[in-house]
C-alpha cells in the first residue's frame, strides 16, 4: 500500500515559494520603476517565471511523493519527469532524522530522513503529519532493531 504525504505540505510550500515570488516581483518593480535600472527586468522576469512554474507543478510533485512499507524494506518514490524509486532494507538504517521548520510547525508537518551508511540513498520524506512522522520513526526503529545487520 502506497502512503502519500499530507496535503498541508503543498500549502506550506505554496506559502514559502509564493513569498519568494512576491519578494522577487517587489524587488524588480522597485529597481526598475524607482531606480530606473531597465536590465533588471530580464533577471527578475526569469526568476519570476521559474517561481511560477515551481508553484504550478507543486501539487503534482507532492502527489508523486510516496512511500511503502514492505516486509523487509521501505520503498520510496518521487519525481514526475525525473522519477526516482529506491528500496532500503530496514536493517540498513543508521539513524532517523526528523526536522521541522517554523512554518512546518505552524501547520503540524515534519520531514523524515532515513540515513544509511551510503550518502547516495537519499530517502527524505517531506510533509508528513507530525504524529505520522513520530509513529513512522518509532516503527522504523523497531523493525530495524529486529533486522539489524552489519554495515
Amino acid at each position, binding site marked *: 500500500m502506497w502512503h502519500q504525504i499530507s496535503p498541508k505540505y503543498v500549502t506550506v510550500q505554496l506559502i514559502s515559494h509564493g513569498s519568494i515570488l512576491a519578494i522577487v516581483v517587489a524587488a524588480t518593480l522597485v529597481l526598475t520603476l524607482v531606480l530606473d535600472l531597465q536590465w533588471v527586468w530580464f533577471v527578475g522576469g526569469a526568476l519570476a517565471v521559474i517561481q511560477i512554474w515551481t508553484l504550478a507543478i507543486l501539487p503534482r510533485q507532492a502527489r508523486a511523493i510516496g512511500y511503502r512499507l514492505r516486509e523487509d524494506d521501505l520503498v520510496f518514490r518521487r519525481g514526475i*519527469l525525473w522519477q526516482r*524509486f*529506491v528500496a*532500503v*532494507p530496514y*536493517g540498513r538504517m543508521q539513524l532517523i532524522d526528523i526536522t521541522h521548520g517554523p512554518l512546518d510547525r505552524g501547520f503540524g508537518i515534519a520531514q523524515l530522513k532515513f540515513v544509511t*551508511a551510503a550518502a547516495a540513498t537519499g530517502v527524505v520524506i517531506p510533509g508528513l503529519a507530525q504524529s505520522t512522522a513520530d509513529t513512522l520513526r518509532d516503527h522504523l526503529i523497531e523493525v530495524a532493531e529486529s533486522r539489524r545487520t*552489519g554495515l
Partner: protein
Amino acid sequence: MTVPAPPPAAPPPQLVRSPLSDGEWHRLHPLTPLLRGGLFLLIVIGIVVSNLRDRLLYIFLPWLAPGVGDEVVEWEEMDRDPVDFVIANNLYVLAALAVLAVLIILVAVFYTSWRFHTFRITEDDVEVRSGVLFRTQRRAPLDRVQGVNLTRPMIARLLGMAKLEVVGAGMSANVKLEYLSTANAEAVRADILRLASGRRLADAAAPAGAQRAASRTAAIGMTVSRELTGIIEGPEAPVAEPESVVHIPLGRLVASHILSMSTVGLFFAIVAIVIGVTQGVTWMLFGFVPAIIGFGAYWVRSIFKSLRYSIAPTPDGVRITYGLTTTITEILPPGRVHAVEVTQPILWRPAGWWTVRINRLTGRSASDGSNDDFTTVLPVGTVADVERVLRLVQPAMTETERALVVHQGMFGPTGDDAFTNTPRRAWWIRPLSYRRNGFLLTDDELLMRRGVVWRRIVILPLARLQSFGLYQGPLDRLTGVTNGRAHVVQGPVTPFLAAIDRDVALRLFDDVARASVRAAQSDRTHRWAQDEVEAGTPATAEVSAPSTSAPAAAPVAPGTPAESPVVAPEILPTAPPDAPTDPTENPA
C-alpha cells in the same frame, strides 16, 4: 575524566598474545613524544640555526666572518642580537639557566602528555584516552572494526616504531595508537583482529596460555626481552610475513605510470610550452613549469608508493603493504569491502593491464588525499593478478563466478553472454558501449559491466548493499529504459548502470531488494571467525570448554549417540557461554 561504572571484561587470556592487550590501561612507547614532537623540535632548531648563522660561521670559519667580535658590543648597537648581548655582559650562567628552564618545561610537558596518553584493549573495545587539560576518551567497538593499519614513517622505522590505527566506521572515527614498538604493534594488531573475529575459543589455547605472563612484572620482562630481540634482529624482522600473491615488476610499474592520461596531458603541456617559447610567448614557461614539477613529484611519489606493494591472505583478512619510505601495512578483515571495481584505461589495453579499486570505510573524510592509498588494492596487474586479488577481496565468490567476471565482465561480451544488456533501441544513450553495458545478478553479488574505452566491471556484494534505486528521466521514459544505481559507502567506485529495459529493471529492483535483505541477514562477517568456532575445530573446543563456563549439558543429537559427543554446530547453539552480550545490537 570518567571511568565507566562496570569495568569491561578483560579479553580471554587464550586470545591475546601481547601483554599490552590484557584489558588494563597501558602507555605508549616512551619515545613517542620525540617522534610526535620531532617536527616541532626540528622547526625550533631550524629557526635558531638560521638566526645564528653568522655566529656559527664566525665560530667555525673565523676568517670568513666580517669582524663580528672585534668591536665593543652594546645591546643597542648589535641589532639587539641576544647572543652578543649575553657575551658582552658575561651572562653565560643566566643564559644557560634560561635555556635549561625552557628545556625542562618542554620535557615536562611532553612527559605529562605521554603519561596521560593511555590505551587499553578489552573484550569488546579498543579505548584511548589522552589530553591533560582537555581529556578525550575514544572507544571503538571491535565488531565494527573496518581494518587495522600499521604506518611506519621513515624516522619511526629507524627507531623500530610504528603507528597503529584501528579504522572505525565513520568520518574521522579512527583510534590511533602512536607510537608502539614494531613488534608490539604487530602483536597488538593480531590481538585486536583475533578479538574482533569473535574467535572466542582459541584454536591454539595451550601454547598461548603458557606464553602469557602471569603477573605484570613478568609481562614487562617479556616486553623488554622482546624489545631486545627486536633491536638485535632489527626492526624489519618479519613476523611470519605471508607471501604476496601478486608481484609487480618495476618496469611494469613505471610503464603503467607513463601510459596514463596525465602523461598525455603533460605531453601536450610540453608541446604548448615549446611552441609558445619559439613564438616568443615566454610567460607560458612560468605558467607551466610549476605544473610540470608538481606532476613529476606526484609521479615519483606514486611509483615509490607502489614499489613495495604486496597483497597476501592472513587468517584475519587481506594484508596489503605498500610504501618505500613510509610503509603502510593494512589488514582488511573479511566483509569490509563494499564494492570492487576492475578497470582498464584505454592506454593500458595493449599491455593487458588492469587496476582494482574498492569502496570501503577508511574512517577518513572524502577529501582526505590519503584515501586513495587505502582503496587501491591492485595498482597495476595482469588478468591473472586480478583473478588472484579478487579471490582475496571477494572470497565468497565461487570459481565459476570469478571466471565469469574475468571472461564476460572484463573482456565481454563474448559468445553466450550471461549479462543482461542495454536493449538495441536505446543504443543512442550509450552509442559505443550499448552491447557491453549490462548487469548480472548472482546469488551473492550484483555485477555491473560498462565502458568500451574505459572497460570496467563493478562487483557489489549484496550483503554490503545499502539500498538500490531506479532513476528515469523523460528521454529514458520515451525509450522505455531506466537507470539503476546501487547505493554503497563512499569511495572511488560509483555503481551506476544506464539504460536498462524498464521491465527488466523493475524485476531487477525486486530481486535485488529481496536478495540483499537475505544476504545481509545471513552475513556473519562482522564476527568473521565465529562460525568457524561454532561449526569446526571440535577438538580444541572440547579442550578449552571447561575453562570457560558451561556448554556442558549440550543436547546430543539422538541419532548419533556415543561415538561423537562433539557434534559441533548444534551443541554450541546460538550463544557461546562467553559470547559478548549483544555485539550486533549496539547502535552504530
